[in-house]
């Protein structure tokens, strides 16, 4: 029922699909972080440079650390320290926030990744 060409076609289509899947769903590291502070102002920082940033929030100063394309809160004046316990974020679209201090950080690639898509 299948000719040789049919078999080759199906296999190569399957391989092409595998390639498409890996290209579509692989996550690449974020290039910038967008910080939103308690006044609603945005600030962009470069994720490719290691740095420690101190941010002024609603109840005090929080500290962010950027190392090797990853980012985390290292210090915050909040009570529960959830932002610190959240740990490292590194993929585009990932976010971390300190609600008491009203600071949030979202990572972005050049094209922003989506956290959810709905149809």
């Amino acid at each position, binding site marked *: *029922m*299948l*000719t*040789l*060409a*049919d078999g080759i*076609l*199906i296999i190569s*289509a*399957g391989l092409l*699909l595998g390639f*498409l*899947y890996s290209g*579509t*769903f692989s996550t690449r590291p974020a290039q910038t972080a967008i910080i939103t502070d308690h006044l609603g102002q945005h600030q962009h920082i470069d994720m490719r440079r290691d740095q420690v940033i101190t941010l002024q929030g609603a109840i005090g100063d929080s500290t962010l650390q950027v190392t090797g394309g990853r980012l985390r809160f290292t210090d915050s004046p909040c009570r529960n320290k959830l932002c610190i316990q959240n740990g490292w974020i590194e993929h585009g679209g990932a976010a971390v926030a300190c609600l008491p201090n009203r600071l949030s950080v979202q990572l972005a690639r050049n*094209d922003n990744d*989506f956290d959810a*898509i709905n*149809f």
Partner: protein
Amino acid sequence: MTASPGLSLQANRDDLRIAGFAALAIVIHLAESALPTPLPGFKPGFANIISLYVLLAYGWRMAAWVSLLRVLGGSLLLGTFLSPTFMLSLSGALASLAVLAVSIHLPGRPFGPVGHSCLAALAHMSGQFFAAYSLFMPHPALLLLLPVLLTAALLSGIVGGIITHKVMQQMQEMRST
């Protein structure tokens, strides 16, 4: 009937065949559109089995007629004529006809029913997808759907090809008896 000479229509054997196959394809098209779809923008495409059978039995020109009449007739009956659905359906049909025009005329005809069916299904989905992308939703998020839709198209192409193969076998047996 006394019709003026300019209006007299002579239906030859090919015209009648085209009409019959197109009617069959439209019925399948309608039945299919009543089924709920597992994926947005996806249909199993069993109406294309008719086009594929016509392609293999009677050639590309007749298959093009049947396929385009199916798109037109189906859309008129469903009330989607000239709507986005129709545009997608038409661009899919045109893309698959373009690919089939090449694949059926390859020297030595290397592809069987399953091969033609897969090529047509993949071309149909790609044509439809890029029409959707360029005309209605030019959003990069849509591209995330492409591999999933193409997988579905490949599977439905294989199934459609197998069914077409069976139909051709049956028709040959009927002719030989």
